[in-house]
């Protein structure tokens, strides 16, 4: 990339309006702006702090924003018109993997202890299953919170329940609560547990409000969490700017992951324009330090921002997410799964932006027979994620 090209983009394009939710994984957007990575690529980006995922979705759909920090499932839901007007959105850059966890309040945890022979029983949900059976069908179901219906949090929590033999729609109640309010709800006993990203699991442990049971990594392996999602109409018209932004975010992700930048990172993120908190509150989101009393996180479970494994969009993850949407009755049948996955999780632009060699083969694509059986096969467990996650693909089992 030479200066001429950058200058050309800068002078010929409108500022790009990018929404973000003040969570730790908006870091690459904030850093790309504050440390000049967007500027160096010749792009003028206006960051806009948003209050809810629904508003992000509506504003991108109706062109009040060009793109945003999005949950990895959001562009899929919007493109399929699930829970919203059908509005084509796409991503060519995954911002982060992992960081989720399931935490339960102290009261529920105390009830789980006598029903478990080992800590494995608690972490697998087996103790919770025993408790639910013991209480009987008349009892008020335990309430668990997620941050958004179309999210890894919802699907991972449901999968965790399901594996323990708990019906997520009948045996428990799942509600939506904004992440910043999760701990208050748990503290006041309005909910019994939640599935949310860091630092809300570690902070609950640190403050003695709850016990963390399991990380998202242990449920699904390494999992795409947030993406840079854009309106597809915008993407079509602004390819050069889009690619410049991918390069800037790529650099910002490397910066965010570098341990020597951590102090500065927390300083910038905690600013009132961004997360509006103290740097100390953010430490659990980034470092390997975890509060006392919390079980050891597997190293792979930490949030990761940089590297091709993380950043390159994975169309097979879109296939997986569509099957989760179908499994939990958010989505009716979709026939053109390959086409949707390819359109929404667009790999070409990522490779092109970063000057990688374009790969012609598309090993992730389903054969037409697989495509016709996919949704049901995943829903019934005949197809599962590889234990190490989507990066390794799927496992076909005879059930």
């Amino acid at each position: 990339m030479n200066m001429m090209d950058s200058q050309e983009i800068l002078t010929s394009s409108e500022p790009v309006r990018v929404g973000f939710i003040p969570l730790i994984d908006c870091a690459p957007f904030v850093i790309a702006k504050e440390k000049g990575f967007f500027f160096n690529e010749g792009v003028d980006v206006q960051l806009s702090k948003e209050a809810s995922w629904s508003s992000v979705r509506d504003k991108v759909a109706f062109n009040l924003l060009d793109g945003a920090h999005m949950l990895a499932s959001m562009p899929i839901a919007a493109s399929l018109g699930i829970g919203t007007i059908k509005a084509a959105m796409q991503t060519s850059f995954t911002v982060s993997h992992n960081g989720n966890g399931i935490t339960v309040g102290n009261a529920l945890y105390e009830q789980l202890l006598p029903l478990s022979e080992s800590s494995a029983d608690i972490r697998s949900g087996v103790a919770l299953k025993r408790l639910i059976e013991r209480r009987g069908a008349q009892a008020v179901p335990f309430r668990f919170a997620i941050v958004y219906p179309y999210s890894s949090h919802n699907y991972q929590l449901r999968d965790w329940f399901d594996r323990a033999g708990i019906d997520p729609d009948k045996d428990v109640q799942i509600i939506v609560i904004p992440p910043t309010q999760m701990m208050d709800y748990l503290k006041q006993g309005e909910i019994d547990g939640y599935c949310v990203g860091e630092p809300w699991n570690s902070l609950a442990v640190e403050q003695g409000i709850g016990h963390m049971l399991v990380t998202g990594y242990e449920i699904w392996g390494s999992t795409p969490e947030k993406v840079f999602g854009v309106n597809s109409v915008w993407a079509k018209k602004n390819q050069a700017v889009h690619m410049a932004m991918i390069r800037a975010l790529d650099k910002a992700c490397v910066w965010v992951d570098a341990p020597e930048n951590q102090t500065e990172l927390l300083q910038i993120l905690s600013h009132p324009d961004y997360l509006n908190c103290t740097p100390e509150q953010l430490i659990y989101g980034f470092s390997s330090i975890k509060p006392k009393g919390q079980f050891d996180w597997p190293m792979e479970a930490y949030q990761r921002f940089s590297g091709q494994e993380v950043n390159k969009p994975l169309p097979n993850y879109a296939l997986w997410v569509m099957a989760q949407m179908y499994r939990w009755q958010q989505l009716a049948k979709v026939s053109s799964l390959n086409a949707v996955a390819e359109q929404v999780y667009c790999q070409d632009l990522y490779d092109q932006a970063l000057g990688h060699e374009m790969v012609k083969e598309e090993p992730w694509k389903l054969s037409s027979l697989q495509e016709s059986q996919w949704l049901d096969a995943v829903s019934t467990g005949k197809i599962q994620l590889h234990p190490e996650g989507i990066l390794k693909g799927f496992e076909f089992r005879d059930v």
Partner: protein
Amino acid sequence: MSAPPNKELTVMLVDNEPARAAIVEQAMRDSGYRVIRRLENAKNLTEAVTECQPDMVIIDIESPDRDMLENMSRLTKDNPRPIVMFAEEDDSRHVEAAIRAGVSAYVVDGVQSGSVKALLQVAIARFREFQALRSELETVKSQLEDRKLIDKAKGLIMKHQQCDEPAAYKALRKLAMDRSQRMTDVARNIISVMELMGDRK
């Protein structure tokens, strides 16, 4: 047979801005709608919706509690769903206008789209009006603050340079022009430098 405007449409209003909520509620009542519940915070938003069964929920687009409503459409069929779901190709203008005005809405299935649009118009108008009032207030406030800053800087220059007010103003203005900065920014810089020097003494 053309139906009369649906006066029985029930509305729930969620807004943490009490002044605006009051204006919007009054306007809705004046137009013949029934506001059955007004919530300032959404602590028990989902319960309130289940309990009151409103035909429509109007909520500030900047409310972080909005996502709580997104899950409800799945729980039972009778619950309100995001209005963007009802925006058809040729008819998305009023939804876009709502989003721009900061209004988001959730509607139950089966409510006449004409009534929804009419009610949305009322909310949009009042939200806009409130926004205009607020920005006007903010402009006046910041103008006042600017004046104060400039006066203070002028005073300091007069004292330091032993000059009169027009001369101090001229110096301030020249500095702003030379540096292509706003007068208030220059004034702020002068004040902090002078205060720093004052402290040293």
